[in-house]
Structure formats: C-alpha cells, structure tokens
C-alpha cells in the first residue's frame, strides 16, 4: 500500500492551488455577492486543461487520472465551489458520459470541444417532480423516425445557460418505465429551447443554475447515446463518477474552512492568549482535522478504484455522503471559531458554510447516498 502521490499528481495539485490562491481568491466575494458567472476563470482553467482533465488526450483532454482530479477539485473548492462545480459537471458527468458510452462520431463532434473547454456541458436529469427519484422522468423524447421530439422541463441545471452542449435524460417509452429512458446530446441553441431565470441561490451563487424548457425540440437520432432505453443506466453510471467530483468539492470546502480556522485561531487573542491555546478551540480543530483526513481518504480511495478499473459506486457514495456531511460540520465550526468575524463575508467561512449545504443536496442527496450504501451493505453482509 502506498499513500504517496506521484510527482505528476503533486504538480497538478500545485497548479490548481496556485490558480485558486492567486486568481480565484481575488474576486470571489464579489462574484458570490452579485452572483456573477466566473467567465474569465472558466476560460483560464480551460486553457490550463482543467475543464477536460480526465478526458483521453486522443479527444483533446488532459489524460489525467481521477486521483489528480480529486486533488485539483479540493484545491479549487477551498476557494470557490461555484467554479469547481462547473469543472465537476463538465469533467465527470458530461465528458465522462460521452467518452465512456458515446460513438466515435459523437466524441469527435461533441467531446473534443468540451474537453478543450471551448464549450461547457450541462447534465439535465432533475425535473420539477423528479429529483432523487430519477425514474419518474416527465420530459419526453418521442421517436419520430430519424429524430426525437423533445418536450418537458428540467430543473436545477448547473451551467444551464452557459452550456453549449446538454446531455438530456428523457422518457421515450413510458410503458417501459425506467427502461424506456434515453439520453440525448442536445445543442443548447436548438430551436425550441428556452432557459428560465437564474436561480438566486443560498450558496455557489455565481454558478449559473437554471430551469430549461424544451418545446418540440428536434434532436437527430445519431445524438442518442447507447442503445434505445439506455438513458437511466447511463445516468446512474455517470453519477457514480460525478459523486467523486462532488465529494472532492465538499472536501475542499471543509479543508478551506479548516485552514482559515487554524490561521485565525493562531492570530486572534482572547483572555490573554491566542484562542488556539484554549482547549475548547484546540479540540474543535482536532475533530475537524480527523474528519477532513477521513473524507480525503474516502475520496482518494474511490478515485483510485476508478483509476484501477474496479467497481467504485459504493466507495464514491461513501465519499460523497461523508465528505458532504463533514463539510457542513467543519464549516459550521469554522464560523464558530471565528466568532462574529465568521459571520461576515470578509472572512470567507460563512460563504464556505453556505456552499457546504449544497453538497448534501445535489448529485444525490445524503439520503440517496445512504440508500446506495445500505443496499450494498445489506447485499453483502
């Protein structure tokens, strides 16, 4: 067993850290306050290759492993999860889905621009009445011979407005239930698509979350991924990998808040000494450190399993569940350690706390992860 990172993995971690600490940090509070989409940062991170870092170089990606991806996600998320969620959706849902299950022609046409970051992808699964229950898709993809006719509404879509390429999950054969669901690659600018207003969120405010409406949108047959009815399986398989990205994001939120809490507790004085010297604060820091280390190990194990080509669904559900839960706990404690300063924007930890909440909800709520984990536990033991 080896807990050492390779030189290359460390280089990627450092590159992500450098970008986050030098560039992202500069205007993160303003972007959060006014919900400004991080256009320039997405462009810069695309040029550095982070938006398609997991994609094979054959399709213009970075060709990096999932462990490197976890390291990069953690560093970016320490500073701004509105940016890292764009990176996560593009890499581990959209690019991964097309690369793993798409045809050569689809990869050539759609994957390459996504891997280069010239286009950003969005994954359209959630609906007003189908969030965790992904089998109840109301959006329909009616088979019209050489094309599908898409109708319906998708909700909570990250990159909903800025994406150039949508992966849309929709029902073609309602009588077959989840086995009638398809996944289609859809050009965002196709006639019949309209995008709802920007959702005014509690956290990750500068990522653009929208509802997307489809009204008689024609999608060529060749844009379907996999066999007819593959859509639900596609979504579940893709989300397994997506969980690693969000787990690493939650880890980054926690470790970002923790680093700030440690620094603050060594500077701030109360009762004649730095507050780190008070056991009530020091023990909080110890608990935070243990939780973060556990979350990091779960993330890295899931990533390692994926890189080895081994099953990782159970591990990624554990990583996502645990990292999201501890992100909420750690950021709450970081605010507490900062006292009144923690409650104002300047010290960042209140924002990290708001961001942490979302990691318990999206890409499979904590309760959905508990279902995935408990089913496996009950099957195995």
């Amino acid at each position, binding site marked *: 067993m080896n807990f050492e990172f390779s*030189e*290359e993995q*460390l*280089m*990627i971690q*450092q*590159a992500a850290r*450098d*970008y986050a600490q*030098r560039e992202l940090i500069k205007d993160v509070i303003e972007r959060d306050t006014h919900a400004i989409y991080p256009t320039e940062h997405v462009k810069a991170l695309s*040029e*550095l*290759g*982070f938006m*398609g*870092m997991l994609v094979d*170089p054959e399709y213009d*990606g*970075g*060709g*990096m492993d999932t462990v490197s991806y976890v390291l990069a996600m953690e560093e970016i998320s320490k500073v701004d999860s509105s940016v890292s969620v764009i990176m996560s959706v593009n890499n581990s849902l959209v690019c991964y889905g097309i690369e793993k299950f798409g045809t050569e022609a689809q990869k050539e046409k759609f994957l390459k621009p996504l891997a280069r970051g010239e286009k950003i992808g969005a994954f359209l699964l959630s609906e007003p009445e189908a969030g965790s229950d992904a089998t109840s898709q109301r959006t329909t993809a009616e088979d019209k011979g050489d094309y599908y006719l898409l109708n319906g509404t998708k909700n909570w879509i990250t990159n909903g407005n800025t994406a150039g390429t949508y992966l849309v999950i929709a029902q073609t054969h309602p009588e077959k239930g989840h086995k009638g669901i398809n996944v289609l690659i859809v050009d965002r600018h196709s006639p019949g698509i309209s995008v709802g207003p920007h959702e005014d969120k509690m956290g990750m405010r500068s990522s653009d979350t929208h509802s997307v409406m489809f009204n008689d949108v024609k999608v060529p047959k060749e844009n379907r991924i996999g066999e007819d009815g593959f859509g639900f399986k596609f979504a579940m398989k893709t989300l397994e990998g997506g969980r690693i990205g969000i787990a690493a994001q939650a880890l980054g939120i926690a470790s970002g808040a923790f680093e700030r809490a440690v620094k603050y507790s060594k500077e701030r004085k109360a009762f004649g000494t730095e507050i780190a010297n008070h056991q009530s604060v020091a023990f909080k820091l110890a608990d935070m450190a243990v939780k973060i280390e556990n979350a990091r190990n779960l993330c890295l194990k899931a990533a390692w399993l994926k890189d080895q080509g081994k099953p990782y669904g159970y591990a990624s559900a554990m990583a996502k569940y645990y990292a999201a839960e501890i992100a909420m706990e750690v950021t709450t404690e970081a605010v507490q350690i900062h006292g009144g300063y923690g409650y104002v924007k300047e010290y960042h930890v209140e924002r990290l706390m708001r961001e942490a909440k979302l990691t318990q909800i999206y890409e499979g709520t904590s309760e959905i992860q508990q279902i995935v984990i408990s089913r496996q536990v009950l099957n195995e033991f």
Partner: protein
Amino acid sequence: MNILVCISNVPDTTTRIKYSADMKAVDYSGVQWIINPWDELALTRAIELKEAHPALVQKITVITAGGADADPTLRKALACGADDAIRVDAAGGDSLFTATQLAHAVKGEPFDVILCGIESSDYNGSAVGGMLAELLDYNSVSAVSSLNLDGNSIKVTREIDGGKQSIETSAPVVLIVQKGIAINPRIPSMRGIMTARTKPLKVVAATAAAPGSKVVGYQAPPQKSACKMIDPENIDELVHLLHTEARVI
C-alpha cells in the same frame, strides 16, 4: 536564439526554516521544494518570448546544480514550457561553486541569452548570475525588470535610483532579472504536465571546484516580542514607551 534559464531549487517561501541542533546546518526535513520565485519569473518571460517570437526563439533550456531531489523542480519547469533541462550533479556549495558548475555545463553550448534570477529566496546570495557571466566571458546586465527582443537586438530595462534605464545589448549575454520581468508566474497546463514526461532531462557530472567560502554556523532571528496595544487616546504612554522601552525616540 536559444535561451538558458538558471533555476535554483529552494524551499517553499512559506517554510518555517529549522536548523540542526548544533546550528551548523539547515534542517531540510519535510520541506516542499519550489522553483526560486525570481527564476520562475525569468522562465515565464522566456516562455512568453518564445510564444511571441516563435521564429526567433528556438529553444528554452533550464539548468540547475543539485542532487536528484531537484529533478521534480526541473520537470515542473519543463511542464511550464521549457524544452529541455540540464542538472549538474553537484549539491551544496556557495555561489562560486554553483556558478562554476553551471559554467562547466554550458561552456561552448550555443546559448544566446542566459537568464538568472537576481537572488535565490533561501540564501539571497545575489552572486551566481554575475559570476556565471564572468566565467563564460559573457556580457551581463543586472537588475533587469523588462526584456524584449527586436530582431537580434536585446532590449532591457533596469531599475535605477529615481527611475528606469533602457539598455540595448546583444547576444551572448547574461541577464540578471528581478521583479517585473514577468507579472504572473506561469502555471503548468495539463498538456504541459503531460508533455514534460517525454522532454529530455540531462544529468551532467560535476566538475571539481573549490568553494570560495565556508559556512561556520547559523543564527536564528530573535523571537518577535509580543505586540503591546495602547489606547489611541493615550499618546503620553505611547511616547513614554517609545522612549523608555523601544528607545527609538
């Protein structure tokens, strides 16, 4: 035109420096190593020039004198955009020792512009660049804060007392560069990191060289005394303490 960038492998600038118990050596255990920040800016400028003048700048080489533990730092330079790397297998020594090793490795090689950071962030010697120019019998310009190419003419700006000085020089030349030579150090891209795997890193044997000086010991800086807060209304006490304790007035 071939550009050589001299790289010093230094502890991360946030490192808390520790010494051996006898204060005769620096304790490097657990240290993260980075490219010396001034050298990183020099490398960034070299890459920018190659991108701006692809027909003029053929190759960027990076060089360091050090043990195999410096290889990751050289590979990072390759990932940033250098074309090849040389490591002179010679660890330790003072500025003269380092300059001698670098000169030994590059003498006779077709380098037109050699860039050296003005100092290293660990020992702050500020001597290798000038010594290297002397050993190679190249011209040198120090305190360079901007560098541009105009055909074969090399245009630099130096920071001087009360302003800036513009200089034109020609190859071969050693330029000792400082802050301003580039704004943001280059962050390696995924593609850069990937291609660095296959870029050449040549290890050259050290030459016999006697250091010009010997370190006899180190002293840690005195602990900072605690900060004393004085009520802004209480000017008399401030003046009293500045006079009796700090003894600055």
